[in-house]
């Protein structure tokens, strides 16, 4: 460990005086841009993440008089990820802003990420004036066209009189039903134009009717199937987080004594400390979860889209199970896995309905014992921690031990992300903030910023990869400027390790473009940003460095130099059979 020389503690700034009571008299809309900002205020927005630029300047000008706090990010991708993470931890749509052209295209990765994970988010983009649209004007791109497949709905707000209503509706839609990102494209002339139309309070359009309560006949049939099951299992997904159904799910599982598996976005919905918890299933899931999901006879999936990283090959996914699928989005029913009992509605409500209908718990004592045996047989393990060099799993495990119980974990994408899944113990919803569906390297640094600002009283830890960190590390400047107490841990294997692992496993060890011949010293880099940097190389120093980094009041970066040969297991190869997960590279070869 070394604390490099040139760090200086910044002068602590006195906390700004805030008068919570002060409420503006309702501001009168005078321009389209003001309508947009007042619409956000009406929706209860108090923070936005973005980057300024020509076409969005009128909207930023309207922010000047607003109580909405704006966090200037280093890159629009950072703004989108921060807004996304803000949405995950708070449950309310995060707001991302960008100018036209490159500003908008830089948002795209973050919007797609939010779309894949059903995260509530609204993006406001500037656009060239309507007279120029279609002429390939300076900084013009077809933002609505580009973002159409990755938004729940998007809007070209060319009319100043309806611009505010578009923003209100976009906000309401991002938040309603199955959450997701929306976007409003604001041509500069419309935001500058005069209007006195006051925005309405957020409401979804009349064509939008998410289901609330499941069909009683299907509830009855599903309850009967569950009651008669010998080998029941619950699969708890991200919809349980988004639907605030975690308490209901816990009570349900415990009352009927049904083992619980989570998906990756579902981490934290059921406490991993509970006897009934089997952990996460899927490509790098636990042995117990993957065996239970493969051998169960009734699978109750709640708020999950049965993504391929979870199911492996569908031919071998829960092949003996009748599937009860609780889902708010009808299009997810039978999309990947056929639902014998489709239960459309709000997860919490439908679980209540099912609970009301059930009279007895399934008789599953033997099955529970079997699940426990699997838990004992397949612990997540790694080589003796005392071994040199440092093991990433040990770093995650120790941090989990030392951190607050409700600490929020954010990650990049790669091996480190999987170790963060496996070796942290998740007990609460909204503590796992990661790029589950899109797998976006670079999510880690900016998501921590959004998470910290969305949940200022919670500890925020990021496990990042050296490769992922290099993609968005410029956002560290924002964490320093905003004086955010975040601990970044780079599990540094000097490689894009997940790719290296696949090359070793599936491409005969031909390591094309997966190892870094040279990378920066991240602790020094952190210091130059004004953050505190630590270098961690020794097993014995792990606790000490984590403690120091946690104690530091502001962003700290631990550059943890880990065993570059470490791989993530268990592993189900892409499209493989969950029940045949490999415990080593050799087993993988023999599958």
């Amino acid at each position, binding site marked *: 460990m070394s604390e490099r020389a040139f760090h200086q503690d910044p002068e602590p700034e006195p906390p700004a005086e805030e008068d919570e009571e002060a409420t503006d008299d309702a501001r009168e809309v005078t321009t389209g841009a003001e309508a947009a900002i007042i619409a956000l205020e009406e929706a209860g927005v108090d923070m936005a993440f973005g980057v300024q630029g020509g076409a969005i300047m009128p909207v930023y000008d309207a922010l000047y008089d607003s109580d909405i706090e704006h966090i200037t990010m280093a890159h629009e991708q950072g703004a989108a990820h921060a807004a996304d993470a803000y949405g995950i931890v708070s449950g309310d749509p995060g707001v991302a802003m960008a100018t036209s052209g490159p500003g908008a295209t830089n948002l795209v990765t973050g919007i797609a990420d939010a779309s894949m994970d059903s995260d509530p988010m609204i993006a406001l983009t500037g656009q060239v004036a309507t007279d120029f649209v279609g002429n390939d004007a300076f900084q013009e791109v077809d933002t609505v066209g580009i973002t159409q497949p990755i938004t729940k709905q998007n809007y070209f707000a060319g009319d100043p009189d309806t611009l505010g209503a578009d923003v209100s509706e976009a906000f309401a839609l991002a938040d309603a039903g199955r959450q997701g990102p929306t976007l409003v494209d604001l041509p500069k002339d419309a935001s500058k134009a005069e209007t006195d139309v006051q925005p309405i309070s957020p409401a979804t359009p009349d*064509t939008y009717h998410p289901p609330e309560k499941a069909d009683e006949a299907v509830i009855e049939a599903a309850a009967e199937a569950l009651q008669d099951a010998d080998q029941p299992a619950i699969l708890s997904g991200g919809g349980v987080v988004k639907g605030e159904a975690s308490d209901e799910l816990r009570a349900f599982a415990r009352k009927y004594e049904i083992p619980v598996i989570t998906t990756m976005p579902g981490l934290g919905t059921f406490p991993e400390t509970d006897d009934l918890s089997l952990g996460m299933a899927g490509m790098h899931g636990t042995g117990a979860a993957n065996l239970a999901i493969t051998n169960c006879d009734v699978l109750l999936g709640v708020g999950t889209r049965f993504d391929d990283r979870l199911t492996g090959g569908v031919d071998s996914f829960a*092949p003996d199970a009748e599937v009860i699928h609780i889902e708010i989005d009808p299009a997810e029913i*039978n999309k990947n896995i056929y639902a014998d009992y489709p239960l459309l509605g709000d997860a919490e409500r439908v679980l209540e309905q099912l609970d009301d209908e059930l009279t007895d718990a399934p008789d599953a004592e033997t099955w529970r014992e079997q699940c426990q045996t699997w838990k004992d047989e397949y612990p997540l*393990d790694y080589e003796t921690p005392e071994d040199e060099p440092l093991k990433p799993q040990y770093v995650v495990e120790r941090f989990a031990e030392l951190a607050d119980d409700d600490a929020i974990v954010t990650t990049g994408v790669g091996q480190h992300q999987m170790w963060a899944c496996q070796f942290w113990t998740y007990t609460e919803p909204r503590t796992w903030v990661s790029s589950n569906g899109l797998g976006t390297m670079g999510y880690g640094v900016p998501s921590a910023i959004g998470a910290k600002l969305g949940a200022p009283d919670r500890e925020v830890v990021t496990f990042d990869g050296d490769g992922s960190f290099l993609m968005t590390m410029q956002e560290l400047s924002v964490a320093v400027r905003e004086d955010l107490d975040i601990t970044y841990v780079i599990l540094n294997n000097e490689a894009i390790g997940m790719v290296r692992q696949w090359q070793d496993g599936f491409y005969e060890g031909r390591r094309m473009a997966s190892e870094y011949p040279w990378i920066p010293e991240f602790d020094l880099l952190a210091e130059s940003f004004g953050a505190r940097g630590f270098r961690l190389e020794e097993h014995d120093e792990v606790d000490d460095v984590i403690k120091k980094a946690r104690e530091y009041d502001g962003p700290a970066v631990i550059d943890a130099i880990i065993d570059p040969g470490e791989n993530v297991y268990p592993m189900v190869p892409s499209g493989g059979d969950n029940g045949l997960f490999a415990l*080593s590279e050799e087993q993988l070869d023999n599958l």
Partner: protein
Amino acid sequence: MSSGELPGPAPDERMRPEGRRNTQGIRIDPEAEATHQPRHAVLSALVKHEPGVLAEVSGLFSRRQFNIESLTVGPTTDKNVARMTIVIEEPEPGVEQAKKQLRKLIPTIAVEELKPEAMRRELALVKVRAEKPDDVQSVAEMYNGQAVDASPNAVTVEITGSKQKIDAAVEAFEQFDVEEVVRTGAAALERGAETMDANGYASEE
């Protein structure tokens, strides 16, 4: 360099289920794999009449790889509502997914699959070399077609009807030199007094 083996029984020593699912995620009898044959489905959709909706719908069908045969769109008696007729060819689960994905679009008001006996019409304009105008005329008459343009060198015939009828007509015209063909794709409505609104097709009471 790779790490050692995690504890626990190896893959071939584990409990194994007996069943299997097909590629659509449906449990099947491993002995007798049932596959769904593609079929034609005519979807009728009421959508908000606003810019971008056509792009949204066609984008949806292409990115989700639904096999689309034709798509037509036009106004209705309500100026805020447009009606689309989409003919797809998909196995049953694909038809179901297409309907759901279409319903999920925010500007979509209602989506229905029309019955096989629904009225279906398309229109074609066929431009043929007019060396023997009388022969062209008599083929056109066979298909209730109408010459809509005639010049010294070419005749253009308009034909409306089912897809099959138009296929047959175009084929028949091939005995002359067919210079150009344009077809609209199907417009379709349910037979009888039924009409479609935001709740779909109201069945007759």
